[in-house]
């Protein structure tokens, strides 16, 4: 494997004395789509937020391309399961993402147009973002994460509250993003989608990594009991 993009060393996260995550030791490859699987409460969201840098671990190190996560937050995008939007137009929301990353004003319009195309939201560009449907909102959120051309994006169950058609549209965008070379790390419950998208898989159970490996092998191999229980819906 070429140099890993993300490295976690002995990372733990503790809330009121309870160790919710860790100690984790993990590396992820620098290209492709990594799907994070696991039952609710396993620590997937926590892991994503720690990896992004919006949360700080109580112990251990998180490194992106060798640099501490907290220092390089600007180069990563994040998509929540449901994203708040600014009370402005769709276009303004995208422009906001660029402004937040202090992207130079001159090139912004072009980047926004590009993002609108990728999200297939051109016709709604001037409408209030609050008027978008659930699926369109998530496409907007993904477009916002992508508009500044980040090194990596992290998604926390982005399609969980969408209907199948919207979910597929979102998937297409995710694949497009990965095709441009952006590292994608996505937590999901949708095993079918994971099968379709993932290049490699990490399974979290009870705050620890229960399994990790290339997707092709993962979906055909035998699993330890805990992982199997999850996959078959017994957890």
């Amino acid at each position: 494997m070429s140099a890993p993009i993300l490295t976690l060393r002995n990372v733990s996260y503790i809330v009121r004395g309870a160790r919710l995550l860790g100690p984790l030791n993990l590396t992820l490859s620098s290209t492709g789509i990594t799907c994070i699987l696991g039952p609710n409460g396993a620590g997937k969201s926590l892991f994503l937020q720690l990896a992004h840098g919006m949360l700080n671990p109580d112990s251990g190190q998180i490194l992106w391309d060798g640099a501490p996560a907290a220092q390089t937050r600007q180069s990563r995008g994040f998509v929540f399961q449901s994203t708040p939007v600014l009370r402005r137009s769709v276009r303004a929301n995208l422009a906001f993402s660029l402004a937040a990353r202090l992207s130079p004003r001159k090139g912004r319009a072009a980047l926004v147009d590009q993002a609108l195309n990728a999200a297939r939201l051109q016709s709604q560009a001037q409408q209030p973002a609050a008027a978008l449907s659930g699926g369109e909102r998530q496409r907007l959120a993904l477009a916002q994460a992508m508009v500044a051309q980040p090194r990596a994006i992290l998604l926390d169950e982005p399609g969980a509250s969408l209907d199948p058609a919207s979910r597929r549209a979102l998937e297409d965008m995710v694949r497009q993003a990965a095709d441009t070379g952006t590292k994608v790390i996505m937590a999901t419950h949708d095993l079918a989608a994971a099968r379709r998208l993932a290049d490699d898989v990490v399974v979290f159970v009870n705050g620890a990594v229960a399994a990790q490996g290339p997707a092709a092998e993962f979906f055909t191999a035998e699993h330890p009991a805990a992982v199997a229980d999850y996959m078959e819906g017994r957890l």
Partner: protein
Amino acid sequence: MDAMATAFGMLIGFDPTLWSVIGLSLRVSLSAVLIATLIGAPLGAILATRRFVGRQALIVVSGAFMALPPVVVGLAVYLLLSRAGPLGSLGLLFTPSAMIVAQTLLILPIITALTRQAVAPVYRDYSGLFKAHDVAPMMALRITLWDARFGVATALLAGFGRAISEVGAVQIVGGNIAGVTRVMTTTIALETSKGNLELALALGMVLILLALLINLAIIGLGRIGQRFEEARL
């Protein structure tokens, strides 16, 4: 009925006394709103968006002070500005400046508390977004304030309403001096105390009309402002 006709006749006929009284009322109250906004709006926004020691106490205090009786504020400012008081050497008593000071203090709690109330829900919605995009605090504040602008405008209108309608504070610190510190409300109080009730009532309606016009103007501005929805980010 006669008095009503008299009052409106004075209004339309540009009776100089009445118009100078109206002019002073507007000058004093609008100035108070301006200064109280410069202090109170950022304060309210900070209370809505940051955590710091004493924040809860400040919120409680600003809420409680919304109910300050104007006459009490006037008394306090009089004691401050009186020659026998600490700021007496400024010589502000019985001038419009003293009235502006009193009204500013009176409406500062309202503007602070209502700005906070307008900004807090917007900020709550946005904080996840700001975290995810790693937005600098100043930019976050600016964006939040702009998107909360209608609520903030309501706060300012509430402050103006309280200022233009109060009589207790300006009476004491202004002295209701004819041609110098006499405003609409003190004129109404004076006419009432002289027993000219109808005239007082008619003047009261003029005051309400004024307040209505100002409210309409603000709302109109708001409509125009809607076109400029996307502030420079």
